[in-house]
C-alpha cells in the first residue's frame, strides 16, 4: 500500500510537469464522413483534443455520438476526412507501424483455438515476425501475471469467464508494450461487480505501466473513477461538448466512490449527458 501511495505522489508531480509538455495524442479539427447507402454523413465534427503523455482520458456520450469512431481514428483504422490526428507526433498509421498502439474492444475477440497464453502472445507475434516464440510467450506470461491471470494461462477462451477473457485481451494489448492503450467499452459486456474489479485492475495497470490510456465508456462511474479528464460528446453533429477535469485524488480506491469530489464530478457529467441526450432527440 505504501508503495502505491508513493508512486501516486510521484505521478501527481509528473502530471504538473505534463501540463506544459506537448500532447501525446492530439486532434486538430478532425472530422469524419461516412458514406451510408450512397449518402455522405458526418459522424464526427470539429474535434479538438489533447491527451498528455501518461494520462488517463475517457470519452463518454450517448450512442451514435462518434466516440468509437474517434477512437478508431486514433488507432489509424479510420482516416479523418478533415483535420489532423497525431499520436506521439506521428500520423496514426505511422504510430501503428512503430507499434505504439494497443487496442481493447468490448468483445475480448480471443482466438477459440488458442489458450490464454497463446492469445496473449498472438498480436505480438503477428506484429513482430522476428521475435522468438519463447520471448513472446515470456512477455505474454508476464502480462497475464500483471492482469492477475497467472494460473489460467493454459485455459481455452471457452473455459474462461467474461471478465477473465477481457483480462486476456488487455494482456494481449500490453504485450505489445504500446505507449497508448485505446479501449472501446472494454467492460461493457460484464456484470457490475466484475466491472468494478476490472476498473481496479485497469487503474493498477495504469499506475504501474505509465501508459497513455483513452477509454470509451457508457458508464459515468467508470469515467469518474478511472480518468484524469473526461470528454463529453454529443450528437447532431457529433462533437465534444465539454471537457471535464476529474480532481478526485490518487490513489483511488473503493473509498473514492464515496468522496465528495466523486459525487460532484458524477453530478456534473450526468447533467451534461442528459442535456446531450435531449439535444440528440430533437
Amino acid at each position, binding site marked *: 500500500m505504501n508503495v502505491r501511495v508513493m508512486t501516486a505522489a510521484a505521478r501527481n508531480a509528473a502530471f504538473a510537469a505534463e501540463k506544459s509538455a506537448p500532447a501525446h495524442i492530439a486532434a486538430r479539427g478532425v472530422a469524419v464522413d461516412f458514406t451510408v447507402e450512397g449518402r455522405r454523413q458526418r459522424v464526427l465534427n470539429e474535434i479538438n483534443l489533447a491527451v498528455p503523455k501518461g494520462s488517463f482520458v475517457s470519452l463518454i456520450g450517448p450512442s451514435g455520438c462518434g466516440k468509437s469512431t474517434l477512437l478508431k481514428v486514433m488507432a489509424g483504422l479510420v482516416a479523418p476526412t478533415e483535420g489532423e490526428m497525431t499520436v506521439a507526433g506521428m500520423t496514426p498509421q505511422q504510430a*501503428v507501424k512503430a507499434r505504439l498502439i494497443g487496442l481493447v474492444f468490448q468483445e475480448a*475477440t480471443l482466438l477459440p483455438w488458442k489458450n490464454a497464453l497463446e492469445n496473449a502472445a498472438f498480436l505480438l507475434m503477428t506484429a513482430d515476425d522476428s521475435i522468438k516464440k519463447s520471448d513472446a510467450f515470456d512477455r505474454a506470461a508476464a502480462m497475464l501475471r500483471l492482469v492477475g491471470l497467472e494460473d489460467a494461462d493454459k485455459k481455452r477462451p471457452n473455459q474462461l*469467464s467474461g471478465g477473465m477473457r477481457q483480462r486476456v485481451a488487455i494482456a494481449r494489448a500490453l504485450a505489445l508494450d504500446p505507449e497508448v492503450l485505446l479501449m472501446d467499452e472494454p467492460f461493457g459486456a460484464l456484470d457490475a461487480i466484475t466491472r468494478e474489479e476490472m476498473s481496479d485492475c485497469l487503474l493498477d495497470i495504469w499506475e504501474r505501466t505509465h501508459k497513455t490510456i483513452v477509454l470509451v465508456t457508457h458508464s459515468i462511474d467508470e469515467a469518474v473513477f478511472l480518468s484524469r479528464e473526461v470528454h463529453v460528446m454529443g450528437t447532431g453533429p457529433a462533437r465534444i461538448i465539454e471537457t471535464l477535469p476529474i480532481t478526485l485524488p490518487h490513489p483511488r480506491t473503493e473509498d473514492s466512490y464515496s468522496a465528495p469530489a466523486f459525487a460532484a464530478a458524477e453530478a456534473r457529467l450526468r447533467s451534461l449527458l442528459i442535456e446531450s441526450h435531449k439535444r440528440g432527440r430533437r
Partner: protein
Amino acid sequence: MTDATLDGSGGVASRGAVGKGLQGLIPALLLALGLVVFWEVVIRLFSVPTFVLPAPTAIFASLVVHWKPLLVAAKATALEVLFGFVLSAVVGIAVALVIVRFERFGRALYPLIVLFQNVPKVALAPIFILWFGYDLAPKILLIVVIAFFPVAIDMLAGLQSVEPSFISLMRSVGASQGKIMMRVRIPHSLPHLMAGLKVAITFSVIGAIVGEFAGANQGLGYVIQFASTQLDTPLIFAALIVVSVLGLAFYYIIEFAEHVLVPWAPKFDPIHSAG
C-alpha cells in the same frame, strides 16, 4: 464470472463420450429393429411378391450370396467417391479463397456459380460419359460439380464471418491482408468448412451412383441397374444397404476428422439445437 466452467469438461470426457454416444444409439437401433420386424410380418401376412418388395430376410440372403461381387462393386464406388470428394474439397476451398482474396473477381464469379448450381447436375451425366467414356473420370467430374458447392459456400461463410473487431486488431498492429487471412480468417473458417465437407461427402456418394447409372461397367450403381433389368429386387436392396453403409462410413470419417482437427468447433445436436 458465471460461464466459467460450462465447457470445461470437453477434453477429459471424450472417452466417456464415445460410450455415451453408443448408448445414445440404442433407441435408434430398437426403432430400426421394430421397423424391420414389421416389414417382414407385412410381407409374409399379405404374400407380397418378392420382385415388388422383398422381405428383409430375402435381402439378407441376397447380401450373403452376392457378397463378393458387392464387395468389388463397393470398392469401385468408394474409389470414385474418394477421388471425387477430395477434388470437390480442393475446388470448393479454392473457389472460396479466390472470391475472398480477389474481391472484384469474386463479385463476377459468385453469381455465375450460383447460376450453375441451378443446372440439374444429374442431366450432365450423359454429357460427361460422352466426353470421357465409361472410366473413372466422368464420375469424378460429376461428383465435383455436385459436391464443390456446399464446400465453397460454407468456407466462404466462415471466411466472411470473422468478427470485424478481430480484423481491426490485426490492422492495429499493421498486419497485411495475407497475414490476416492465414492467421485469423482461414483458421476461423475451419468449423464451417467441416460442416460443408459433411454435406459434400453425402453428395459425393449420390454423385457416384448417378454417374454409374448413366454409364458404367462396375460399381454399386451399376449393380443396382443390372439387378433391376433382371427383376432381382433383393439384390437391388442389398446393394442399397451397401451404399448406405459406405456413405455412413465416409460421413463418420469426416466427423472424426472434425473432432481431431477443430476440437473448438461448437457441437451440433440436431434434437436440442435451440437449447
